[in-house]
């Protein structure tokens, strides 16, 4: 069994064991088993980084076996510089989420932990799949555990949120399915993504395929104007669900652009780049403004996620080394930072049971340790140099300025907006005098919460101070992708 298969199936196996064996009267054992599963799942992904060959754009750790012979579908896995970090990121966030749910979840612990472990395996599968149908199966299957997580452990309006999440994203991906089947027939009966990369396609066909992909990925990213599901879902999802959603699930969409849209329909991607850049800029500026006026902390972070993902798509469709690498770095950084932001909100919510900014004030007085962490993550979210949030945004802005000054100008305003809404929220929630009795009664974070926030804090700082390991890995793959996209596939 290859390393990638291990990375996918270890968490799934532990998840299935938890579902089958766990009961609420042995919740303690269930939690420990989940933790062990998450740690092992993370450990098996480490060799992917240590054994990764730099300087080549070839797929690595490739596994290839026939799966459905009737449709020539194979179990074809592999990672390149673009995807390898997401495998590690997913396993890491999964571990953090298991720790975050430790004593917060008391009902049906085994189903909660099992759902997250299975979800993490499925998401790793999306990043590793090199077969179109395998990709789609993993991509869609992630909906099921997330739907259950939101619906079972979510807030008061959880049912609306769960349905909105499921149906909204399903709508997009059904068009993706049609496009995949169409590519299968066009390529003479192959679901292999790498084969599709070199498949000549006419202009209209490329445009149709590009937009079918766009329907799926734009909803998932989410891009303006199909982002409206995200705030609703984030508000109702449990803390862990929000963290995984923002940190990993949104990246599935952005990753789809890199793996499918751009290489398969390069001419259409170049032709429609102005549209994509326009939508990204609207996300960055307009949604950034929307974030400023939010009263609910989770909604604010949700809108900030949309704005940050706008940077990612902006970087991709500038078609320069710096832009695409910046977009990918931003994806990873946002994975750490958004997860941390949601976990911070979760820490407060567990104690006060309110997400309203107005319910807080002066938290620093009662929770100094926690506030220190929160400050770090807020700064990272605002893109302060020295934190993970800075690197990607800076790269994208630089690439944008090179491409067109006004695009760069628009993107740069987002930094100001980001600093504005983040710091203003920080001021209202954490600073000032103690606002009410709830805040007065707050207990500072315990060892478990300290551990989970410290893990993320280390990641955020390390990536901010020394991003080289991240950019080194992706250099060759990004260069190869751009070289490929620059060639016309029109026949």
């Amino acid at each position, binding site marked *: 069994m290859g390393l990638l298969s291990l990375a996918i199936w270890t968490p799934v196996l532990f998840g299935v064991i938890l579902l089958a064996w766990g009961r609420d009267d042995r919740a303690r054992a269930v939690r420990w088993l989940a933790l062990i599963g998450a740690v092992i799942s993370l450990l098996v992904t480490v060799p992917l980084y240590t054994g990764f060959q730099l300087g080549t754009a070839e797929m690595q750790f490739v596994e290839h076996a026939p799966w459905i012979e009737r449709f020539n579908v194979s179990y074809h896995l592999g990672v390149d510089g673009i995807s390898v970090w997401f495998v590690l990121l997913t396993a890491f966030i999964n571990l953090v989420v298991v720790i975050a749910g430790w004593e917060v979840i008391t009902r049906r612990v085994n189903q909660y932990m099992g759902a997250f472990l299975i979800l993490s395996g499925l998401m790793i599968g999306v990043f590793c799949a090199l077969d179109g149908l395998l990709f789609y199966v993993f991509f869609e299957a992630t909906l099921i555990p997330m739907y259950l997580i939101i619906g079972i452990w979510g807030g008061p309006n959880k049912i609306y949120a769960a349905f909105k999440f499921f149906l909204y994203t399903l709508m997009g991906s059904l068009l993706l399915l*049609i496009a995949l*089947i169409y590519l299968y027939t066009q390529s003479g009966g192959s679901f292999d993504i790498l084969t599709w990369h070199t498949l000549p396609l006419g202009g209209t066909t490329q445009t149709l395929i590009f937009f079918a992909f766009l329907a799926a990925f734009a909803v998932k990213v989410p891009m303006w104007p199909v982002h409206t599901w995200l705030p609703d879902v984030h508000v109702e999802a449990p803390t862990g669900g929000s963290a995984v959603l923002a940190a990993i699930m949104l990246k599935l969409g952005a990753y789809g652009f890199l793996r499918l849209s751009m290489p398969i329909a390069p001419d259409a991607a170049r032709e429609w780049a102005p549209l994509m850049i326009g939508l990204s800029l609207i996300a960055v500026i307009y949604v950034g403004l929307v974030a400023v006026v939010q009263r609910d902390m989770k909604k604010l972070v949700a809108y900030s996620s949309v704005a940050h993902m706008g940077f990612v798509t902006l970087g991709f469709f500038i078609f320069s080394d710096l832009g695409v690498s910046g977009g990918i770095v931003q994806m990873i950084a946002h994975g750490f930072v958004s997860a941390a932001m949601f976990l911070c909100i979760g820490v407060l919510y567990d104690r006060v049971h309110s997400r309203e900014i107005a319910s807080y004030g002066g938290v620093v007085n009662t929770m100094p340790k926690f506030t220190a962490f929160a400050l770090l993550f807020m700064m990272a979210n605002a893109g302060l140099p020295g934190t993970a949030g800075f690197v990607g945004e800076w790269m994208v802005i630089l690439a944008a300025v090179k491409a067109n000054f006004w695009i760069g100008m628009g993107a740069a305003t987002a930094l100001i907006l980001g600093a504005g809404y983040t710091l203003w929220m920080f001021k209202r929630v954490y600073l000032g005098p103690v606002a009410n009795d709830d805040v007065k009664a707050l207990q500072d974070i315990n060892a478990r919460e300290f551990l989970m926030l410290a893990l993320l804090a280390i990641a955020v700082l390390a990536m901010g101070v020394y991003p080289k390991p991240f950019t080194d890995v992706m250099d060759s793959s990004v260069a190869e992708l751009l070289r490929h996209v620059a060639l016309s596939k029109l026949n």
Partner: protein
Amino acid sequence: MIDNYSWITVLPEIVLLALSCVIALVDLYVKSPQRTLTYVLTLLTLALVAFMQAGYAVSGLNQYGFSKLIVSDQMGNWLKCFAALAVMVTLVYGRPYAGHREMMRGGELFTLALFGLLGMFLMIGGNNLLVLYMGLELLTLSSYALVALRRDNTLATEAAMKYFVLGAMASGFLLYGMSMMYGATGTLDINEMAQAIASGQIRHQVLVFGLVFVVAGLAFKLGVVPFHMWIPDVYQGAPTAVTLMIGGAPKLAAFAIMIRLLVEGLLPLALDWQQMLAVLAVGSLLVGNLAAIAQTNIKRMLAFSTISQMGFVLLGMMSGVINGNTISSADAYGSAMFYVVTYVLTTLATFGIIMLLSRKGFESEEIADFAGLNQRSPLYAGVMAICMFSLAGIPPMVGFYAKLSVLQALIASGQAIDIGLAVFAVMMSLVGAFYYLRVVKLMYFDAPVQTAAIEASADVRFVLSVNGALVLLLGVMPGGLMALCANALASMMAG
């Protein structure tokens, strides 16, 4: 001419008929209210027959019998094997349910099920219009009686009346269409009919006139719009065990008779019947999915869901012949067969759960009765959730691959209208996802209303778990069954 081969082709049917008669006689001496002996004998019979059919199918037998009245080919043998297994599973789920509802004062449940299966076998294996019709009538007559088995229940008797009247009308349609075909071609033999039509000597109008009636009759039996009105009423009114007997295995037979009549007999008229099927499919997808949303009764909801699922089967059936070219038709019909087989598998588990939740004096028929099932039994909630996701076509459940292969067959035709139909079909399955998800929502997100313990005997628990696991496992490893269906149809189209 009757030779030894003829006897081989009908050996399973003979065994089935003989043992059914034996069981009917033995049952007279069974005193136990649970009818354990009858039950065990019936299951053994079904297992034996399924085993024989599987053996035939694996050996690749392709044989005509009794002067081509009967054909025993790979497709037919697999379908018969699956039908026998489906009836077996139905009886396992249905026995406790029927026992609580005074449906087992005699052993009719078992013997009628066996005779129904015999009818299905004839429908699947017939190579002659009259044999096919006879099989259909044997199946539907057994079904009428089964629906009315609970004779003191007004709903059930009403459903039986409706079913009988509409079913008789449909049979009339079909018979009339068949007689037109006979009049035009001068033969009842399916192959000779195809040759006669292909010769081009027969007037097209007469043929199409007959074809309309044949398609209408089949559409009635399959339950597709606009011939679907009996489905919701009968599904709801019939005792759930009988609903499954009607909604499960017979779908396999209905698919087979469609293949025998339309593909084997009337393939030269494909251009005509493909258009009819397209209209029926669009109507079924639209009406089935939209009407299912409004239902509060789960059996009624599943009835409308059946209508929409059969719409998908028709989409597979109508994408076989492209511009008069039959090169990819085996793929298309294979996808329809895969769809039907997986649909039956999923339906069995779904109704199994519904019967499990029903108790003596309590019908678990409202969708609301599923509230909080996850807290009462995570296993059964899991099985039901797998089935719902499968029917909605979400991977990695087997239902996804069924939809995939039908969509593939549609898109492979490369015609704009077919791709448009594929987009329409997936949009309709998005609508469908809503009502399937609603059941999952009730089971997982809501608090239980019913708190009574769920009792299940060991056989039901075992079969239900295997059934649910299969829906998931065939989704993880769909290749085998897919290849089986494709090969069965390929060998049929070649021979």
